[in-house]
């Protein structure tokens, strides 16, 4: 019997012939934490007598969730991280460098076939690079950093076959939202989800990062994509010249297999207060929005900013709508500036905040007022998620749908503008 990507990666990292359902102790290649999860990890590491990471490629800490620092309390957390990192020679991606799930891949520390853990649930994003990466709590990441190993239950895998061509103004986010609605918030709990097929091969890397990012919203553990020329080109642009890809065997066993048609997709929106509460954008006509967010680890990459700018260019967001843009990294912001995207968005009325998580987690940079609606390219719309639980509705959508909705001041199918 052949193996899935998850079975192969956990076999090679545990030195065993691992199959779905087995418990293995595997070597971890890289680990990370961010400013919302680092202090608990640091306390555990100090109690273990930590003297540096034993993971094969080390670790990093990223200051992205509250960046730049919004309060004295958070300043203490950031200071603790910097001090610990200095003492243990751990790199810190500090204020303004970007969201962990962009700067870690950009750093060239995640390669095809790697096993990576992070103290952030969206660590599954790195699956776009043909890696097995997953989010864990701070204690698990501390254990991985200190011992270089961690225990894993080898997951069963789902195969998501996607054929066809994405219609105009329909993108990876719409597919991810569609899959979330289809499988529900726990439909892939503890599974490794492999997206394959013509439509996936046709996606650029940014689109693949978007889909992998949303995998945890269906409960998945890993979301490894195939490695192709686009993967290699992307990695080569970030200093990686040698790689060894992993693919599932023809006769690998998938617990479930789905066949989707990208050409049948329409722009989607996840309504409050659940990511799997999805409908077509066109059915929400008339839902007024007061704030829009373009960015985050889901959709803050160059293609995302470009897709929104293409719709907003030469126009202006409707009076009464605040469009907040948080590029996923400083590198992306610089590229967007060189491409003229930043000035197009600014002229359309956008407000740029520092590369990082932006207002997604409700700590700063755009907390909505009571009773407001927000349309966002982020990945979560839980009640209170953006820092205010008083009748705030968060709608999740693609950059195209967010941009179109800004122009009309109401949720809008981008094909209508």
């Amino acid at each position, binding site marked *: 019997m052949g193996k899935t990507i998850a079975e192969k990666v956990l076999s090679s990292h545990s030195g065993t012939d691992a199959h779905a359902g087995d418990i293995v102790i595997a070597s971890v290649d890289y680990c990370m934490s961010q400013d919302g999860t680092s202090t608990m990890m640091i306390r555990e590491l100090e109690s273990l007598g930590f003297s540096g990471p034993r993971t094969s490629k080390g670790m990093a800490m990223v200051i992205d969730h509250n960046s730049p620092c919004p309060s004295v309390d*958070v300043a*203490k957390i950031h200071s603790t991280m910097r001090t610990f990192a200095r003492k243990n020679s751990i790199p810190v991606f500090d204020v303004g460098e970007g969201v962990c799930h962009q700067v870690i891949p950009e750093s060239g520390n995640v390669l095809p076939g790697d096993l990576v853990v992070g103290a952030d649930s969206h660590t599954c994003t790195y699956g776009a690079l043909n890696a097995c990466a997953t989010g864990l709590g701070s204690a*698990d990441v501390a254990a991985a950093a200190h011992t270089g190993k961690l225990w894993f239950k080898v997951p069963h895998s789902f195969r998501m076959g996607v054929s066809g061509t994405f219609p105009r103004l329909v993108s990876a986010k719409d597919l991810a939202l569609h899959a979330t609605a289809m499988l529900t918030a726990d439909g892939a*709990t503890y599974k490794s989800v492999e997206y394959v097929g013509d439509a996936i091969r046709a996606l650029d890397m940014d689109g693949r990062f978007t889909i992998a990012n949303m995998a945890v919203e269906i409960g998945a553990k890993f979301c490894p994509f195939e490695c192709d020329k686009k993967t290699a080109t992307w990695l080569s642009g970030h200093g990686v010249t040698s790689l060894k890809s992993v693919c599932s065997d023809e006769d690998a066993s998938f617990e479930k297999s789905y066949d989707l048609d990208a050409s049948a997709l329409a722009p989607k929106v996840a309504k409050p207060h659940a990511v799997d509460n999805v409908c077509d954008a066109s059915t929400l006509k008339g839902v007024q929005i007061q704030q829009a967010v373009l960015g985050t680890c889901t959709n803050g990459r160059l293609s995302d900013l470009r897709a929104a700018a293409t719709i907003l260019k030469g126009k202006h967001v409707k009076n009464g709508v605040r469009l907040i843009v948080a590029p996923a990294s400083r590198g992306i912001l610089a590229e967007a500036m060189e491409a003229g995207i930043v000035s197009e968005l600014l002229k359309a009325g956008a407000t740029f905040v520092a590369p990082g998580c932006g207002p997604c987690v409700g*700590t700063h940079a755009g907390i909505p007022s009571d009773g407001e609606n927000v349309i966002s390219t982020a990945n*979560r719309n839980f009640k209170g*998620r953006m820092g205010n639980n008083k009748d705030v509705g968060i709608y999740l959508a693609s950059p195209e749908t967010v941009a179109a909705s800004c122009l009309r001041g109401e949720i809008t199918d981008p094909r209508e503008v």
Partner: protein
Amino acid sequence: MTMILEGKAHRFVPNDDINTDYIISGRYKFKIDDMNELAKHVMEDIDPEFASRVRSGDVIVAGRNFGCGSSREQAPRALKAAGVAAIVAKSYARIFYRSSFNIGLPLLECDTDWIQQGDAISIDLTVGTITNVATGKTARATAIPKTMQVLLADGGLIPHIKKHGGFSLE
């Protein structure tokens, strides 16, 4: 770890998909690093009275996919600091499941429709049974996996590593 727990059941709306943002909101967890302080805000967005109502030894009872969303370990830690001794739910999200056992908070998985808000329940962790103290009705939870039993017996993941100098999960 005490193997027999007794406490009052607390249920919430929604019953399913109670995410870690609901357990402890980002607006607190990013600025408060003291779990006893965070405990004052647990479940606030879906039940503002819970933090003042919960007593040491009480049990949270829920439906499917408890603890989904963010990986924040503050979620199980703040619940534990608030006095929650165990959680009984139909199913759990993956990260929350691991983290709870890692920090010494036991989770049991079984049907929960028969448990009402405020019921006095007792839990026997050795055999995995949940009993309604007033009616005597008992249900058996799915067996806690061996790995999790080992972690729980050692007081959590980090104590386990200190004790064994690494992983010893057999």
